[in-house]
């Protein structure tokens, strides 16, 4: 079921900016509808709404911004490190990053 949905209308997750748009829909401080979420992400990335679902734009931009890529790149941020960069980019707080900070920044 995953593939026909992805190929028909899916943004593509971290191949493009689908994860970022999903965060803006789900974040309870925003709860943005799809058009607003895409416009918000495009503005933060400095590209167009068309570009945020375009692998040819997003693949390199994601690596440049350190927000996680779908191919194996040694040294490139992934997991919590990538999500910390996403927090700054989108001006949101991500739960796993918040918990990581609480665990690592104790005085």
């Amino acid at each position, binding site marked *: 079921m*995953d593939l026909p*949905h992805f190929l028909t209308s899916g943004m593509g997750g971290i191949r493009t900016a689908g994860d970022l748009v999903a965060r803006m829909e*789900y974040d309870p401080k925003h709860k943005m509808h799809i058009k607003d979420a895409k416009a918000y992400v495009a503005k933060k990335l400095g590209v167009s709404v068309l570009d945020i679902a375009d692998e040819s734009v997003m693949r390199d931009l994601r690596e440049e911004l350190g927000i996680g890529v779908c191919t194996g790149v040694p040294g490139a941020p992934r997991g919590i490190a990538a999500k910390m960069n996403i927090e700054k980019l989108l001006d949101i707080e991500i739960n796993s990053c918040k918990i990581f900070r609480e665990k690592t920044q104790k005085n």
Partner: protein
Amino acid sequence: MAFYTRMGDGKRVEMTREAIIDDIRAGMADAADMGGIPDLTEDDIAIITDIVACNDRMVGVAPGEEIVLTYDIGQLDFTGDNGNSGNGVDMGRLEAALLHERALGADTFELAHSDYSIKPVKPVISMEMQTMEEIQAEIVAPYFYGAMPNCGLYYAPDGPYGNPADLMREFKIDEAMAAAEAAADHVARDIEYVTTRLIQAGADGFNFDTTGSAGDADCVGTLNGVRMLREACPDAYINVGMAGESVMGIHGMIEFDGQIVAGLYPHQQVKLAQKAGASVFGAVCNTNTSKSLAWNLGRSVTFIKECVNQAEIPVHVDMGMGVGGIPMLETPPIDAVSRCNKAMVEVAHVDGV
């Protein structure tokens, strides 16, 4: 000219354009009548007709019109048996999550227990928290924990309360209603226990899958659990996905926030999900296997379009096997899946699938 299309059980059939239009209108009329909601517009019907009456194997939305995808059942789509339409391929939950993220274009994903219900998670909550912590360290996409509230597990012979179906057969109506109310309270407490711990372990949020599967008490218990989670974890991502297009009235009178939930349709269900604290609502329309894809799609889009129109929060339509117009079989044909998906995006204007 005849077009290849499908029945609700997936069987391939040929239909003329006129027959497709007739079935779209009939499905639409059924939804509008049942839900007391508006018909589709003539433009909507024309768009759906063009989508169904297309001989290409797959269809797709225009660039720039993409939406995001939310998943149920987590890694069980790889590891599960045919009861979950799983592939029967054993693998770790970390590997399954990263494959979805990095190879299958998943915008979000989730961790799941093999029994995929709230109740069996309780005894293994520490293991689930550990796994959540490990996967959160590696994954980038929003990563939920997902489970069915599944109030049925709280009734005899599996749980502590009398089975309402058995009690009603004995004309013990008051006892049946009391058992349903007790089970609803119990599932709400268990939801609070399980979900708050998983959020403490770093989960982005929780996916409530098939809310109301055991009827109206299941729905009320889940909504009360969602409210508890929202109060305890104000930043959690919460997806409330429904089990069916109408809440089954097994209790009949049980309420959430002063509203009887039995018989509510998607455009009414979403308002209660919003009140409870959901971030996103998973709307459902069931497939009739005896009717055509055109009939089922016309019906589904009518229900979901009105739900989207009345929702304040984003709506991700449920589009698995036997919902959202998609034929009811283990391996839905991709031509049918892509047609239903495109119609939901272009006509119902869903925020996600």
